[in-house]
């Protein structure tokens, strides 16, 4: 029986915010989160089309310190993984 291609197979090649290095800037292309979280992310500036810059990253796998426009925020890597970046 033929398998339908899994959607995750492609996302592996896509850039996510988690992979962005300190000092780099990229444009957000999509948020793969549930509706409620989507609203909160958007209210803090994390929405498709916006540019995001990684200011620093906490040690021991701690959160990332980001800047979007004039807003700065911290986000866990786990959540950063669900934010896709434009190539």
């Amino acid at each position: 029986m033929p398998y339908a291609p899994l959607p995750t197979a492609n996302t592996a090649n896509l850039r996510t915010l988690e992979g962005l290095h300190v000092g780099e800037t990229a444009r957000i292309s999509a948020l793969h989160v549930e509706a409620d979280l989507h609203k909160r992310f958007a209210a803090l500036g994390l929405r498709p089309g916006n540019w995001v810059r990684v200011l620093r990253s906490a040690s021991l796998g701690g959160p990332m310190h980001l800047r979007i426009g004039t807003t700065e925020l911290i986000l866990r890597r786990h959540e950063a993984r669900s934010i896709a970046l434009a190539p």
Partner: protein
Amino acid sequence: MKRVALLGMPNTGKSTLFNRLTGAHAKVGNWPGLTVELLSAKLLVGDQMVQLVDLPGIYDMHGFSDDEKVVTTFLTTQTTDLLVVLLNTSQLDRQLNFVQQMMQQDIPVLLVMNMVDEAQKLGIHVDAKSLSEQLGVPVCLLSAKYGQGMEQLLPAMRQVLTVTSPTPSFTVDASHVERALEQCTSVPSQASHALTESLDRVLLHPWFGLPIFFAVMLLVFQGVFTIGKPLQDATAWVFTEGRTLLLEPLMATWPTVVQGFLLDGLYNGLSTVASFVPLIILFFIFMGIVEDTGYLSRAAYLMDALMSRFGLDGRSFVMLLMGFGCNVPALMGTRVIRSKGLRYLTMLVIPFSLCSARMQVFVFFIAALFTATQAPWVLLSLYVMSLVMAMATSVLFKNRYVNNDAFILEMPPYRFPTLRQILLRGWQEVRHFLQRASRFIVIGVLLVWVLTNFPMAVSAGSMDSWAGQMGQFMSPILSPLGISAELTIALIFGFVAKEIVIGSLAVIYRQEGQMLVSTITSHINWIQAYSFMLFVLIYTPCVSTIATIRNETKSLWFTTLSVVWPLCVAWCVSFIFYETATYFVRA
């Protein structure tokens, strides 16, 4: 009376504006249909009195968090005549959606663009007049913190409240709001806070960040202790002198029972408690400064990796820190956490935070039984113990209360707290303390006096009195911890509020000030004192905390757990400490 609601996203300076408008006259009150208490105050707008209500900060009108539900329920059930919508002027881009949602509420809106001082520093300009024309609502540019532009706010509110303004004829859609804001604001392409950037390079350093953070906290506690202790001694001295020079001669001819009741009961108890007011003010001022600078969000960043291993997150840690002031507001602060599991886990650990009421007890016992050089370290050991208990509890319960919330937090730029803010906060805390004093402490110390002086004809505080009998009844449980019958009575009353503990000892030993210290020194040794302090640290902080947990969770089972678990831990920890320490001292 017309009603005005204050609304905005978190961190837009809502409480600052509320305090600026109402001074220190705000009241906390219940609202029909709402599960939480909201701050409100009467405000004179032009010639009419209106009621100003401070609604919780929310990100989205259609969200599902408790705070968002409170706001939507409030707006649908309570008639509101004006929505004052607060925005952070430097970050308008991400608040567009919120503005649009507010303008769809069928309630007149007044847009307040706050923190205009920061926006100007970043080179951001807003044309309030043309924005107001394009959106069809009044717009005020101001800084609630520094008072800049505040003079326009009341007239603007009055105008909306008196003139029944027609609703805008055009539809308020997102693109319209966006276009209007784009046309009326100018943001330079490189807008950032230079000072914040340099400070963060040091304070959020991957290696030095955490050590600096702990040093800052140590400095705060050390500062409270070094400045507060002489002030406390001075206050205690004034009360002792007041008794011997003024009250005793005045009451010399009064019946002995009345004298005993008023002097040994009420006055001794209350004056011992009141002497701690300077320490409490200092503590809240210091913590307030740390909070107002924006350093607490940095603490969340620094501690999150560590906290996640205990099943908590950076916000839980900040709440724990807030709990060092008072557990009750910290428990209510957990509302920002959306995951029920994480919220419950955080509420379970907050009562281990060494609050300022418990600090009083410790400061008293430490001063009585330890040298001045040992004192800060003993106090620090209790703070460490408080965190250890919280983390251990968290690890044990993290699989029961699972965190499934995203961790995302705004990092505000560093801000200088103003003297006005600091003093206002100090005053609010003292008022809060005195309110508690009138409710719990007076009744508490009087009850202690009655229980220690009755039945008639027993010698006061002896083991034949009611209190003595209670102490003896409990002694099989507490004597293995080195806690005497007198201290047991204090512990029983301390269940109501820790502020009563020292006051009740004053009543039990019929002594106050320096005399009370020397009496206690002669009755117990340092091991017993430390065991007692451990018990006070870990068992239930106060009735208010229990009531808050019950209120926030609406769960009898969880409330019971949050009382019983710390009691068991307190007994075990004190037992292990007392028996081990006594063994080694004997050996």
